[in-house]
């Protein structure tokens, strides 16, 4: 670590935090806490983007940081909170089985991701290249989280946190994508969240619950 500029060290730190948060989300049963963790991820992401912007002088990353802050720290958690209140699922607890196994699989995934990212990061010109492995790990962990969830909202949070991982990869490994792309992505995420919100209500209306076990009717007959 020594020898790296300070901002790079800070980014590595934030990357580690992101990974930790991803693990925390994997193990978290309660919806409200999940949203908090998601918002925390947003904060970490904003911070890391801002630090990259500061460290490398890429001005458009400041916009990215602002966008992240607004979208992922304020708007999306706010929407989620509102939804939870309106849907009255505040105290929903996920009946997950076997968190230790999930964590174990998560660790294997992290190892795999680091392994996968290693040859790529060797090629990178950026100082923060080693964070790519963490980004992949975050994506994988979110994927795992989506698989293990049986309720609609946690699954969506998993989906959003996957987006976070991707965003982290974009900023830290490549110093950000072109602005127009980032705006487009942000728009898609926002619209998607809105649509999902509408969906939650409709699902609740139809099934009286947001449990995904009701959504298993369409299948091939045995």
């Amino acid at each position, binding site marked *: 670590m020594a020898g790296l500029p300070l901002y790079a060290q800070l980014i590595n730190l934030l990357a580690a935090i992101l990974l930790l948060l991803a693990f925390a989300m994997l193990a978290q049963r309660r919806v409200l806490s999940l949203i908090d963790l998601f918002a925390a991820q947003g904060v970490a992401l904003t911070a890391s983007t801002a630090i990259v912007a500061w460290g490398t002088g*890429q001005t458009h990353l400041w916009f990215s940081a602002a966008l992240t802050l607004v979208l992922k720290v304020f708007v999306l958690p706010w929407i989620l909170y509102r939804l939870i209140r309106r849907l009255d699922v505040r105290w929903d607890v996920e009946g997950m089985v076997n968190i230790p196994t999930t964590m174990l699989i998560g660790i294997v995934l992290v190892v795999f991701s680091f392994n*996968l990212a290693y*040859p*790529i990061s060797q*090629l*990178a*010109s950026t100082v923060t290249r080693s964070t790519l492995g963490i980004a*992949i790990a975050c*994506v994988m962990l979110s*994927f795992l989280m*989506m698989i293990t969830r049986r309720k*609609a909202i946690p*699954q969506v949070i998993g*989906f959003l946190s*996957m*987006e976070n991982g*991707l965003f982290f*990869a*974009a900023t830290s*490994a*490549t*110093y*950000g*994508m*072109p602005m*127009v*792309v980032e705006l*487009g*992505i942000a*728009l*898609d995420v926002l*619209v*998607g969240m809105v*649509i*999902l919100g509408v*969906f939650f209500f*409709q*699902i609740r209306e*139809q*099934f009286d619950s947001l449990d995904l076990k*009701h*959504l*298993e*009717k*369409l299948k*091939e*007959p045995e």
Partner: protein
Amino acid sequence: MIELGAVLAFPLAGGLVLALVGERRYAPAINVAASLLTFVAAAVLALRVFEHGPLLAVERQFFVDSFNVFLVALTAFVGFTTAVFSRPYMRIEQEHGRLSPARLRLYHAMYQLFNFTMLLALLTNNVGILWVALEGATLTTVLLVSLYRTPASLEAAWKYFILCGVGIAQALFGTILLFFAAEKLLGAEGGALLWTELDRVKAQLEPTVLSIAFVFLLVGYGTKVGLVPLHNWLPDAHAEGPTPVSAVLSGLLLNVALYAVVRCKVLVEGAVPTMFAKSLLMGFGLASVVVAAFLLSRQKDVKRLFAYSSIEHMGIITFAFGMGGAIANFAGLLHMTVHSLTKSAIFFAVGHAAQKAGTQSIDQIRGLVTQSPMIGWGLALGTLAILGMPPFGVFASEFLILTTAMREQPWATPFLLAALGIAFAAVFSRVQPMVFGETTVRRLPHRPAMMPVFVHLALVLVLGLWIPPALAAWYREAARLIG
């Protein structure tokens, strides 16, 4: 330039107008008109590209070459005929009490926006925008799939959203990796996401990164193509959405997603000299063909049936692009065209048939030719066409693909033979009693729109017997681009 703008502007404007005016008597007419204008603009654009060659516009952000312009024309055309079809179809749905005016408003607006996103995906030169547009297409179609708000349609839409959302997130990661690899050569601002630029420097891109990127891209866009084992959303979404949506999903969206895959494949092929990308495509293609064939034989819902058939055909096309080479690529492009025309025609016929029977259950749709020969024959001929019966065009492409496979990938032919046989048995044994025999169906309150069905089938028939030289030159050029 102007044509390009028009191709994108008409559907966008149409969508906004339709969202604003709400459900009026003339809303379907606006929908048709916007689609028609889009189609005309696309045709003009196509002619232009055909005459003057590839076109780069708006600071290289838009790029039109032979490959995508033919898909643009096809998309606009099928979008137009589907709009024509949806006019009486949706009216009958409304009278059957399945839709409220507000939903129709949503339908029309989203239909146009969906067309917009697809055209944007095709026209853009920016791999990132391509991603954004495809995600946009997912969002609009999610709303369309859930239009009926029945439990089944909600479930289908949810699965569609989550699976495609997750899938396409992988594609975003792939795009990031692509950017990561290209940035060193092109600079962060130097258009590292522009396909034309990437294509220029593809030989120097880092193979390791590109391989991994391609895996992510393939899994991502492949989910939208419906490649096995990423296909699970597809039958649900096709079966539960309104029929015009099934038609455009099968006829257009899958094509566009496959277009994205092929664009990426071109880059990877340039960077990784091994058979890597080809083998992946062939493997996914073959798996899709075989698995879809087996799944076809267990269907009870007619729209699900043809949804699986779409998976099968996407598999065939993917396999063809995987084989590569002038003939196979040509065949793949031809197959994209004819599959999209035929499958949408089938969905049109199926839609009316289901309305007539009041159900999508195959067992309860019987004897269509007796009660309404047009729908019956349309369905019968469309089914035979999609099963690869000459003289329809699907056969032409399958002919080229199979004969090429026999020489170049003989190991695959037993699988293809078995799968095509099973698929034929499965589909035809289900459609035959729907078409023939004693009838169970009733009359419809409005005249069904059979024109689009027969126009599509006529085009497919013509393509089976005679491919206009201009079109052939076009395909050949596109096939060359794909490599």
